[in-house]
């Protein structure tokens, strides 16, 4: 289990992390979400010792992460990059060996992953001779080639075409099923909803929501209510400043209501406007949960 414990990090006047805490369990895929600049990349860099937290620590299997532990992690940084003029297979083998694999095992692993990525015919090509999409595949293979027990992927889907995204999700699911812990950050919330079991949402260096997606839905302080009043065009809502309208589509409106809201009164108002065809709770989408979690923090003045 990976434990991120109370990480704090400042870059001059900028607070990057402010007590960031969460855990990632083996065999679970964790989506690490947050607006730009929320501290996702800094957190990941702290895991790999690339950034030194001012406070807090990162633990793996109960012990503070050291270099030996990191050898069993795989990393795909947001800023992609490999040696442009190095041959693809040699490059993978080099990184596998840097993670402690003997040369022969590393060479075999490199070829296995190139096959898996459909790049076995490009083994002897230099990286810079490959297309952008194929370079991304090699980058993913670099994170995987040494059979890591934990995968940390920073924006793995950015810049991928749909085929690349499919390969990526396949591999992530497969590694997870094999017991590997996976943490990845992404802005593509539909994908995250599709792939992840758990999500962690960070804003301004603090975790604002964490847990299984279903738990978060259940725990959501507000409910998504869909109301359809025939012939109303949603006009019955006009002049109400308290209700949060998420969406209007013809007679159909989507509302965000507090759990404590008086639904009877609301229903009564809707009935006065016309025939109520729909009046139902809807499970919130991840993107809605995300906005809900991030919004109150985003409204705060970010200078501290």
């Amino acid at each position, binding site marked *: 289990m990976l434990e991120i414990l109370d990480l704090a990090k400042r870059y001059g006047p900028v607070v990057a992390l402010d007590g960031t805490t969460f855990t990632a369990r083996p065999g679970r895929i964790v989506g690490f979400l947050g607006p730009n600049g929320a501290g996702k990349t800094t957190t990941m860099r702290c895991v790999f010792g690339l*950034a030194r937290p001012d406070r807090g620590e990162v633990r793996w299997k109960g012990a503070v992460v050291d270099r030996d532990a990191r050898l069993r992690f795989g*990393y795909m940084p947001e*800023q992609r990059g*490999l*040696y442009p003029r190095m041959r693809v297979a*040699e490059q993978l083998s080099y990184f596998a060996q840097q993670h402690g694999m003997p040369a022969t095992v590393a060479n075999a692993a490199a070829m296995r992953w190139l096959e898996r990525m459909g790049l076995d015919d490009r083994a002897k090509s230099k990286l810079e001779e490959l297309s952008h999409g194929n370079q991304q595949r090699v980058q993913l293979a670099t994170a995987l080639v040494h059979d890591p027990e934990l995968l940390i992927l920073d924006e793995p889907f950015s810049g991928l075409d749909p085929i690349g995204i499919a390969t990526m999700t396949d591999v992530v699911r497969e590694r997870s099923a094999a017991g590997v812990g996976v943490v990845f950050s992404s802005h593509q919330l539909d994908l995250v909803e599709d792939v992840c079991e758990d999500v962690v949402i960070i804003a301004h260096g603090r975790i604002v929501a964490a847990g299984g997606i279903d738990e978060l839905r259940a725990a959501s302080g507000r409910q998504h209510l869909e109301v359809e009043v025939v012939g109303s065009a949603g006009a019955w809502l006009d002049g109400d400043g308290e209700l949060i309208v998420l969406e209007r589509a013809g007679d159909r409106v989507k509302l965000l209501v507090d759990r404590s809201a008086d639904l009877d009164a609301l229903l009564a108002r809707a009935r006065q406007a016309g025939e109520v065809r729909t009046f139902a709770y809807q499970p919130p989408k991840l993107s809605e949960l995300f906005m809900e979690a991030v919004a109150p923090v985003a409204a705060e003045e970010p200078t501290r």
Partner: protein
Amino acid sequence: MSRWRSIWLVARREVLERGRSRGFILSVAFTTIIVVGSFVLPALLFGEDAATKVGVVEPVPAALPVAIATTAGQFDRAVEISTYPDVAAADAALGAGAVGVVVAMPADLSGPGEVRFDKQTDQATAQIISAAIIAVRVQAVLGASDVDRDALAAAQQPPLVGAREPQTEDEEARFFVANIGAVLILVGIFSFGFTVLTGVVEEKQSRVVEVVLSTVRARDLLMGKVLGIGVLGVVQLVVFVAAALAAALATDRLTLPSTTPGAVALLGLWFVLGYLLYSTALGFLGALASRMEEASNASTPVTMVAMASYFVAIFAVVDDPSGTVATIATFLPPSAPFVVPLRAAFDAIPAWQIGLSVLVTLAGIWVLFIIGARVYAGAVLQVVGRMKLRDAWRSAGE
């Protein structure tokens, strides 16, 4: 996994990737061709085509100028002959470089006379003139009505060959080896030190450094890089020196000084020490830059120190190899790599000074590496803009 395996892997990657690159192979081939060429070309061009200027002292035997020209012609060499009223005038011309050789021979052919060079005897020219003198005297004997066997034998006596201000070949060769050594060290530091610099910037620019540093310690990466590129530097030095020595021997331009094996070993040692010192400095300064243009700015102080050290060596130290400046420069790590081999070539440095200088330089490399590794670690992940030394130091230390 041990740190040493990690360093070894980094170094091995540098050797394999750069050693196989066309650029490296071409540069080794190119420098070798230049070294060999600088010995062989003058031998081809000047050795045969340029006219040898010969001064003869009056009174001149009538047959001598023709004999010299004819003999030289047989060896495909041209001569220009001028006459001087006496030995003093001829010697003055020799000292001023107006002529390359002076010939003084009794006009009555009673003796073989003398052949004189300025500082060093040119064997080929000496042979040609000797042959001409013998030919003139032998013809005179043969031309008489009856041939005197004793006179014929006496006529074959070669002239006295010497130099006006004799200089030992050893001295000249030493000076040559010492200068070549200083240049080689400078070139080595510049070309391979800058390979380290560009390698560091390339890793930053291609962003691969973040992947590498997720497993390799920053100081191990710097050390592996410096060592790997250093191996290539030594390979090039060995090829270079071997080519230079072979060419020097083959073209007879230089008789190697008696101290050559020692001088070459010392040169190799100081090449390595100088490279380690300067490439470590260049490596961590390179980490402060995020683009090549910034890298050359960041490296300016190092370049200037290297150039200053080189000039101290070739001017101050050559001028007075045992003087105060030379002695001080021996114990400063930046200048020691240039100064010590030069002083040793002049036999002007006691063994204890060499030993102490090596220790001081090693200590300097170690200190620089400790500082450099920390700055490198702090700066190498900063990918935008040029970083200040102080910020990098702090960022790694927090």
